[in-house]
């Protein structure tokens, strides 16, 4: 879809990045013109044996001159930093109400899953104008989710979730690349992002084969994997209740406090001895090796759905 000489600006972030790029290109071009201009001028004017003026150096070429351009350079760079950093900070967190898409990377394919359970491979359909939050993890090595047209890139790391987000502003199909070297077919680990109108997206989504949404899959796993044996409200085992847990601050037995986010819930399943909730015994077994990354995402979605229902009550 790309033309040879230009890259579409297809997201809100793309416009910001290209703005910074333009200023840096101008600053660099001016600096290069200055340095090359001076070198060429001096090289011609002061070539050996030319009759240009030599003699004593003018007063201006002194220490203060040196301090001056050092300070000027520093302030220019500090300004560039501040400007680029503020654009970065502005784009750190996805807006609330963003569409959530789960991405699972493996050698050498991208699996994406929409909130309603629709799955795609090496493809992602998204509506235009809606922020889309990507929650990503890898099943094997480190990959990197790179959509040049959106100017986004985020490494996808095994053993943890990483996130990025975008808001598409142009309809069309845009290439998706794996940008972190991941072995033999790294260069074949490509996909396509299709940006559709909101109504087309809704139609597309409903036409996808029926798949349970993540929370429903998680609810089934919650029973089949035995979680409910301890964590269900009816259980006799003394285990933390999960209703309303998501997003809450949890008091741990060693005095620390943590926020119950995706990473915490994941760690609690895989390394339950690490963060013991205050008032409970460390009796939970680790589920490392028993749950794959997709199942952990589903269980996390289920626990989150418990929290939301609590909130509505």
């Amino acid at each position, binding site marked *: 879809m790309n033309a040879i000489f230009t*890259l579409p600006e297809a997201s809100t972030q793309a416009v910001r990045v290209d703005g910074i790029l333009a200023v840096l290109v101008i600053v660099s071009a001016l600096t290069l013109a200055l340095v090359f201009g001076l070198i060429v001028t001096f090289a011609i004017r*002061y*070539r050996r044996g030319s009759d240009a003026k030599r003699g004593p150096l003018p007063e201006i070429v002194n220490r203060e001159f040196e301090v001056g351009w050092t300070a000027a350079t520093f302030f220019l*760079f500090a300004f560039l930093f501040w400007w680029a950093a503020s654009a970065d900070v502005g784009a750190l967190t996805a807006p609330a109400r963003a569409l959530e898409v789960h991405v699972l990377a493996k050698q050498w394919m991208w699996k994406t899953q929409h909130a309603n359970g629709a799955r795609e491979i090496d493809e992602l359909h998204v509506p235009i104008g809606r922020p889309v939050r990507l929650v990503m993890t890898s099943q094997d090595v*480190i990959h990197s989710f790179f959509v040049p047209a959106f100017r986004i890139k985020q490494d996808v790391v095994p053993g943890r979730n990483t996130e990025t987000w975008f808001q598409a502003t142009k309809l069309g199909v845009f290439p998706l690349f794996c940008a972190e*070297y991941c072995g033999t077919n*790294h*260069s074949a680990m490509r996909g396509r992002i299709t940006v559709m109108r909101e109504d087309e997206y809704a139609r597309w989504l409903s036409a996808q084969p029926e798949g349970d949404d993540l929370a429903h899959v998680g609810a089934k796993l919650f029973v089949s994997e035995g979680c409910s044996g301890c964590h269900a409200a009816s259980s006799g085992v003394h285990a933390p209740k999960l209703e309303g847990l998501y997003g809450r601050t949890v008091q741990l037995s060693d005095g620390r406090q943590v926020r119950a986010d995706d990473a915490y819930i994941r760690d609690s399943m895989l390394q339950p001895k690490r963060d013991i909730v205050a008032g409970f015994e460390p009796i939970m077994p680790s589920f490392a090796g028993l749950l794959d990354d997709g199942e952990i995402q589903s269980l996390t979605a289920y626990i989150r759905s418990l929290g939301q229902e609590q909130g509505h009550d």
Partner: protein
Amino acid sequence: MTDAALADELPFPPRADYLRAGSTLLSWLATTDHKRIAILYALTITVFFFMGGAAITAVRVELFVPNGWFLSSDTYNRLFSFHGIIMVWFFLVPSIPNTFGNFLLPLMIGAPDVAFPRLNLFSWYLTLVGGIFAVYTLVAGGVDTGWTFYTPFSTMFSNTHVLTAAAAVFVVGFASIATGVNFIATTHMLRAPGMTWFRLPMFVWSIYATSIVMVLATPVLAISLMLVIAERWLGLPIFDPARGGDPILFQHLFWFYSHPAVYIMVLPAMGVVSEIIPCFARRRLFGYDFMVYAIVAIAGIGFFVWGHHMFVSGQSPYASLIFSFLSFVIAVPSAIKVFNWTASLYRGQISFNSPMLYALGFVGLFTTGGLSGLFLASIPIDVHVTDTYFVVAHFHYIMVGGSVSAFFGALHFWWPKITGKMYPESWAQFAAITMYFGFNMTFLPQFVAGYLGMPRRYHTYPAEFQVYNVMSSAGAAVLAAAYLLPLMYLTWSLFHGLRASGNPWGATGLEWTTTSPPPPHNFDIQPLVDRPPYQYHAEGQSAGTDSPEVQNARSLR
């Protein structure tokens, strides 16, 4: 009247120079003369340079077409990995320090040898052992991790010879450390009477700063590789997330070495250029003390910017902000150096011998590479262009455009001193200009391809990037030819070159006060120093119109 000419006229027979002080193979392989060890290193890294070059030539030929035409993806991955490992650890890191640093450091400070001559020889043998591991890795089938050895790919997923490749780098790292220790001790202990710190030539300062970085950073590389070996070979859980490990930890360790390693590669190049420009402009180096502070600042701050390689790795966004700021800060001393080199040309008497062409080329290419570094220090831009050809272009501008240009500049500048022979100047100028244009043809298009989104380490690529790859590959052919030229005419000059005098360029610096080539212990009389370097003209004046003899009389004693 030079020393060499004097020696010829004296009534007793000429004493043997270091090249003729022994002619058996053993006299070379067991030598402790820093100059002979420099030659051993030069031969070794030349072999590695052309091995790494051959690997990337195959890669560039393959990339002429979007879907490849003669390599499998596995072979392609092994070729670029081999290129990176060889070029970084077996060429760039030892290039200027271990050849010219070894040869020149004692000469420049007026010492008979380095502080630990046997350690010096030992470090060459370590390089050789590391090299044997690297060549074994290649012969056995190669390694496909890239030069970065990222986990968990390197520890759990690659089916190639990661262990021997890591061992190669591990061993050659200790050669770096040994050399660094040696140079630090030499600079502290063996300076000639009167050679105070602020009378040291910039090349000595740059080698000194580089040595400190080598000694402090390289052990961390050894640790990272040791951990990779421990997990891959012994199965210890270190980076494997399924067993509580953290794959990102490896990146922190690796870049804690590998970012300072960039300065190991470029600081000596800055030192070389600071010697060449004053000599061929017949000017004092502008702002000598600022140049010293800049080198020290770069070496110091260089330890605190490693996180800018990891903006998209998932590290804390607040950490990223700090690393971004420090990356802008470290650009300041680099910019100062560029301004000072440029200002050193002002009111000079500039001649364009090939060392000067390489030095001016260095300033241009380093400036371009440095400015592209500002893009990468800006987080939003870096997020878009990291792991693309933009980054490839950026670091090749610094390491190849910068360091390799300076290496060739140094090779031509000190060739008469090292070999006692003059090289053919027109050929050398032709090669320097060809190299400059070949380099830009190769790497300038990669900035654009990268910004348009072409990821690095891609064997196949979308068709819209082909035009840039064809340009790059065509430029690489020019560049390869330019690298082969010096091999030919320099070798020719060994046998047919005119005899070099002690100081053919009329340069200041103690190394030019002895004969070419120098005697085994460098100086017949202990040199004394009573002035700062680069006294090409009187204080406050500009380039002298004095004849070289008058200038020499002022700068030498």
